[in-house]
């Protein structure tokens, strides 16, 4: 009964509030170092169901995580070896043919420029201005690429941090849950379960979809005889992790490669038709199965989330925008639900007529 008597006092929230403020202050002052930890937490969250699969079957957590890491390391080495050998042919060919491609693009650019300025003379006035804006961007590209190189250290840092998050995360969650006030445990766990289900379904769906996009793109582009099909399929698969980006990147990059390789508009049309077919297949067959239990997000909301993510945190903002939107949407739904049930905003109807007796 003691816990009930104390539950009404606001003084009990002073210390947790103070801890929260200190925690948020630490987050703000260390925000530039947080990125690898956020990515590691996301990576650990994605791996967690696999770890749970084995722990629920009676294996100790630390051995399961170690085994998964060892198997993943060996697989990455093997796949890397096979892939480097396989892709190296494409890279060598790409490197060899590059001067010819550049020349072809230059000729194409010049003829297009002549045609456009012939038809629309005002474009000739805009040309120096456009060049002035594009040239610095183009020259900055190598610098930008070099600037992302430190991010490669994440490749080693993230699995390392994730390992310890996976190993110790369960104990921290259990400790926290055991120290939440008893009366609040049910609602806290309910909210966590709802977020976990929708976010987990979404992430698993996205990963499956990206992998399927890679397989379909690789098969289709190879069948068309397009060069660098594997490289293109990898780019399409990775960009497929961001909604709509996979198909868009795919159609643009593959169309350029097709035009440069075959030199006809028909080849570009084939590529465009192929990606339309992928989009159709994705929307009508894959998504209803893969994403059937995920949070349904309106396409307009997805676009807004992507733009907001870019504005807030650049590239990583885009990567995390949809999962964060999932969490926010679920929190909004739970808030509405709590208002309706706890405060009786909208009482739920009885499932049957109560006057009929139990027979």
């Amino acid at each position: 009964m003691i816990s009930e008597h104390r539950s009404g006092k606001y003084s009990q929230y002073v210390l947790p509030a103070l801890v929260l403020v200190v925690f948020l202050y630490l987050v703000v002052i260390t925000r530039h170092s947080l990125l690898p930890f956020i990515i590691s937490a996301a990576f650990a969250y994605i791996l967690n169901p696999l770890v749970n699969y084995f722990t629920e079957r009676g294996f100790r957590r630390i051995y399961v995580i170690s085994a998964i890491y060892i198997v993943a390391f060996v697989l990455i080495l093997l796949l890397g070896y096979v892939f480097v050998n396989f892709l190296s042919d494409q890279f060598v060919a790409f490197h060899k043919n590059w001067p010819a491609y550049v020349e072809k693009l230059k000729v194409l650019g010049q003829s297009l420029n002549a045609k456009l300025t012939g038809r629309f003379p005002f474009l000739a006035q805009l040309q120096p201005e456009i060049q002035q804006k594009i040239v610095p961007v183009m020259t900055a590209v190598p610098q930008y690429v070099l600037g992302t190189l430190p991010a490669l250290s994440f490749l080693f840092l993230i699995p390392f941090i994730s390992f310890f998050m996976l190993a110790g995360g369960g104990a921290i969650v259990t400790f926290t849950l055991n120290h939440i006030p008893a009366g609040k445990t049910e609602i806290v766990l309910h909210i966590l379960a709802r977020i976990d289900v929708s976010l987990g379904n979404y992430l698993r769906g996205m990963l499956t979809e990206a992998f399927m996009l890679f397989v379909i793109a690789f098969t289709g582009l190879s069948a068309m005889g397009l060069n660098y099909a594997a490289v293109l399929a990898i780019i399409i698969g990775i960009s497929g992790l961001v909604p709509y980006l996979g198909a868009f990147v795919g159609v643009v990059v593959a169309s350029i490669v097709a035009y440069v390789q075959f030199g006809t508009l028909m080849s570009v049309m084939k590529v465009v038709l192929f990606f339309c077919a992928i989009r159709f297949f994705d929307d009508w067959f894959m998504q209803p199965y893969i994403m059937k239990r995920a949070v349904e997000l309106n396409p307009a909301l997805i676009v807004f989330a992507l733009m907001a993510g870019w504005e807030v945190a650049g590239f990583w903002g885009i990567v995390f925008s949809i999962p964060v939107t999932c969490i926010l949407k679920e929190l909004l739904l739970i808030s509405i639900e709590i208002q309706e049930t706890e405060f009786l905003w909208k009482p739920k109807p009885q499932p049957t007529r109560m006057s009929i007796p139990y027979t």
Partner: protein
Amino acid sequence: MKFLSFFKNIIDEDVKKKTDFLRETKIFDKIPGRKLVHVLGALRERDYVKDEVIFSEGEIGRALFIVQSGRIDLYKNMPDGGRKKIASVNPGEFFGEMALLEERPRTTTAIVGEDTHVFLLFKIKLDILLYSKPDIGVIISTRLAKIISARLRGMIDYLESGERKNDF
């Protein structure tokens, strides 16, 4: 021998104890042993200490509680403002099953009688189990229906015996 002890360390005996316990509970006793891991994956656990109030009468229910160890007492609010103990839930028993069917106010207050370890099953986790593992879902739903029916019969008998008039 060290080699063998390494393999012994890999196995978590605690998981076996939990699945053995779940096999003994009325709600999961018809589920084949190897499939109980799916049920275990859907459950959350928590320790409660004596006198903690798990939920109060009138609060919205969201989970079923299965007592693994310890004891939880269920109380009913009385018109005079006091409360009367109407039942004790012991290891292997469960309460709060209505929360799996509808989000309605709890009909009793649950207070921990002695230090207790419980499993919690939330409606959303049960829904996933029903759809992803229908063979398990059918068993749980049927058991749940039978248990609720039995408790309803018990309540009718209780009311008919006139005890309600004296007790409440």
